[in-house]
C-alpha cells in the first residue's frame, strides 16, 4: 500500500511534465515571435569588422531598443542579390554595400532615402559622404589604397605612384610587386584613380598595367591572399588598404606603409536603409552614425569614420589617412565602363 501511494503521484507527474514542457515551449515560441517583430537584420564584414559591429553598433541598438539585431556576414554582391530577391519583405534591413552596388540599389529603387528626422546623427555627416549616392546611402567608414613595402629590401620607396609604376616596369623590384587586379572588388576604382594620374587616359593606364605585368608577382584579387603574400615575403611591395597596412607595419618592424603622392582614392563601405524594412532600422542607422559608436568603430578597425563630431586621439590619428589625401572616385563617370574594363583586363593582361 505504501508503495502504491508513492507511485501514484509520480505517475501523474510523469503525465503532467510533458504537457508543461509543451506549454512552456509554446510560450517561448510566442515570446520569440514577439521579439522577432522588432528584430532587424543588418550586415557586417567578417573578422574584426564583425566584432566592431557587435561592440559598437549592436550594443548601442540594444541600449536603445532592448533587442539585439541579427548580424549577417555577407559581401556586397550577396547583399544586393538578397534584397533584389524579395523586395516586398526584405531579409536584410540595413545594408552594407560597395559604392557602386549602393548606386545601383538606389537606382533600382531598393533603398529608402536617408532621413535626418529619423536618424538625427545624419546631420553631422558631411554631404560629400552622401552626395554621389543621392542620399540613398552614406559612407560608414572609408579607407584608401596605399603602399606597403619591405624595409629590408626596399631602402627608398618611390615617393609617388607614377615612379612606383615606372620602377616596376623597369624591373627595379624584380617581380616582387603586387597591385590589385581590375577584377578585384575595388579594382575599377583603383583604375579610375590611375586614370586621374595619366590625364584621364584609360588606354595609358592599361598600357601601364600591361607593361608592369612581367614584374608583378600577382595582380591580387583576394585581400587575405594579398596580405599573406606580403607577410610571407612573397612580395616586397604591395598596394593595400591603409588601416591594415599601418597596423601590419606597427607590428612588424621590417614592414613600412605610406601614401604615395598625390594621395589615394577613397574606398568606402556604404550604409543604407532597405526599402520596406521595419522602422527600427532607423535606430540602427542612427547608432552606426553616432559619435560614440563611430569613434569606437574607428579605433577598432583603424579606418576613418564620417561623423564630423568624432575627435580621434593622437595615436589613432597617426594611422588614419587624412581626408585631404583621399579622392573620392567619380563613380557616375566610370561605373558604366566597368564591364568593358573587365573584359579588356581579361583579354589584355596575361
Amino acid at each position, binding site marked *: 500500500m505504501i508503495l502504491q501511494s508513492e507511485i501514484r503521484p509520480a505517475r501523474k507527474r510523469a503525465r503532467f511534465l510533458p504537457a508543461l514542457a509543451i506549454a512552456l515551449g509554446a510560450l517561448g515560441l510566442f515570446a520569440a515571435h514577439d521579439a522577432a517583430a522588432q528584430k532587424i537584420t543588418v550586415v557586417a564584414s567578417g573578422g574584426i569588422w564583425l566584432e566592431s559591429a557587435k561592440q559598437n553598433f549592436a550594443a548601442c541598438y540594444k541600449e536603445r531598443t532592448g533587442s539585439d539585431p541579427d548580424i549577417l556576414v555577407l*559581401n556586397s*554582391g550577396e547583399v544586393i542579390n538578397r534584397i533584389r530577391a524579395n523586395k516586398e519583405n526584405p531579409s536584410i534591413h540595413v545594408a552594407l554595400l560597395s559604392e557602386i552596388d549602393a548606386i*545601383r540599389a538606389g537606382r533600382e529603387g531598393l533603398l529608402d532615402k536617408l532621413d535626418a528626422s529619423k536618424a538625427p546623427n545624419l546631420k553631422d555627416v558631411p554631404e560629400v559622404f552622401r552626395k554621389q549616392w543621392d542620399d540613398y546611402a552614406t559612407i560608414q567608414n572609408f579607407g584608401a589604397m596605399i603602399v606597403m613595402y619591405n624595409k629590408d629590401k626596399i631602402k627608398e620607396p618611390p615617393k609617388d605612384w607614377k615612379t612606383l609604376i615606372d620602377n616596376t616596369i623597369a624591373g627595379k623590384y624584380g617581380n616582387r610587386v603586387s597591385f590589385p*587586379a581590375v*577584377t578585384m*572588388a575595388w*579594382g*575599377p576604382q583603383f583604375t579610375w584613380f590611375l586614370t586621374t594620374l595619366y590625364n584621364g587616359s584609360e588606354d595609358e593606364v592599361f598600357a601601364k598595367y600591361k607593361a608592369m*605585368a612581367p614584374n608583378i*608577382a*600577382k*595582380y591580387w*584579387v*583576394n585581400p*587575405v*591572399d594579398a596580405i*599573406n*603574400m606580403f607577410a*610571407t*615575403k*612573397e612580395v616586397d611591395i604591395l598596394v593595400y588598404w591603409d588601416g591594415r597596412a599601418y597596423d601590419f607595419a606597427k607590428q612588424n618592424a621590417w614592414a613600412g606603409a605610406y601614401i604615395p603622392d598625390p594621395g589615394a582614392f577613397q574606398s568606402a563601405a556604404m550604409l543604407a536603409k532597405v526599402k520596406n524594412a521595419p522602422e527600427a532600422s532607423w535606430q540602427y542607422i542612427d547608432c552606426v552614425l553616432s559619435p560614440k559608436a563611430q569613434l569606437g568603430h574607428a579605433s577598432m578597425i583603424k579606418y576613418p569614420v564620417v561623423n564630423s563630431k568624432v575627435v580621434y586621439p593622437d595615436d589613432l590619428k597617426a594611422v588614419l589617412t587624412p581626408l585631404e589625401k583621399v579622392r573620392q572616385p567619380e563613380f557616375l563617370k566610370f561605373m558604366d565602363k*566597368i*564591364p568593358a574594363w*573587365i*573584359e579588356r*583586363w*581579361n*583579354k589584355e*593582361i*596575361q
Partner: protein
Amino acid sequence: MMPNRFRLSTLAFLAPAVIGLLVFFIGPLLLNVEVSLREQGGGHGLAQYLRALGDAYYVKVWLQTIVLAACVTFFTLLFGYPFAFAIARSRGPVKGFLIFLIVTPLLINVVVRTFGWMVVLGRSGLINGTLRAFDLPTINMLGGWFAIGITLVHVMLPFMVLSIASALEGIDQALEQAALTLGAKPAAAFRYIIWPLSLDGVITGTLLVFSLSIGSFVTVMLMGNNRTMVLPVMVYQQLNLSSDWPFAAALGMVLLVTVLVISGIQLAIGRRLRRGQA
C-alpha cells in the same frame, strides 16, 4: 481503364519528387535560360551566346576550363586509385586512419586549405625553402596552373578514392585468387579482373571529380593569375563586378551544357571499356 488508373496513381506517388525537381532544378534552370537570352533593348535572342562563342578569348577560356578539369580528373585518378586500393585492402584501425587521412581536405575550409598550399608552394614555402637550403634554384609554383592543379587534386582525391574504394570492396577476393590459380600473374589479375570490376567506381569518381573541378572557382581565384581564367571565375566576375547578368547566365549555360556533354561521353567510354574488358 485499369492501366490508366494505375498510371495516375503512379504519378500521384511520384508527385513530390517531380514537384521538387521542378521547383529546385528545372524552374531555376529555365529562369536562367530566359536571363541568358535577354538582349539590350529588351528583346530576346542569342546575342550573349554569340558573344561567348564568337570571341577567341572566351573560346580559349572555355577550352582551358575543360582541360583543367580533365587534367585534375586524370591525376586524381592516377593518385587516387592506389590509395583506394590500400583502403580496400586494409583492415581495422589502419583502414580508419587511411579514410580519415583522405577525407581531411573536406574537413578544412577551402580558403584555409588553399592558403596551406600557398605556404607549401610559395617562394619562401616548404618546397622552395628546401631547394634554397640545398643551394638549388627555386621555382615559382605560386599563382598558376600547377598550383591550381595540385590544390584541386588534393581536395578532389576523397571523392575519387571513396568511389573507387567502395567499388573495390565490393569485389570478392576469391575472384582475384581464382584468377591467380588459373595462371594469371598479379598484374594480369589486376588488368583482367580487378580493374574492369572497379570501373563503376572509376566512372563515378571521374564524373564526380570532373563536374566538381570544372565548377570550382575559389581555388582558381586564389591560386591562379590572369592567365588562369576559367568559366566559373568569368561567371563570378560578370555577376559581381560587371553586373552583366545575361552574359553570366549564358556563360553558366555553356558550362552546364559542357559538363552534361562531357559526362555523357565519359559514361559512354566507361560503358565501352567495361564491355571491351570482358
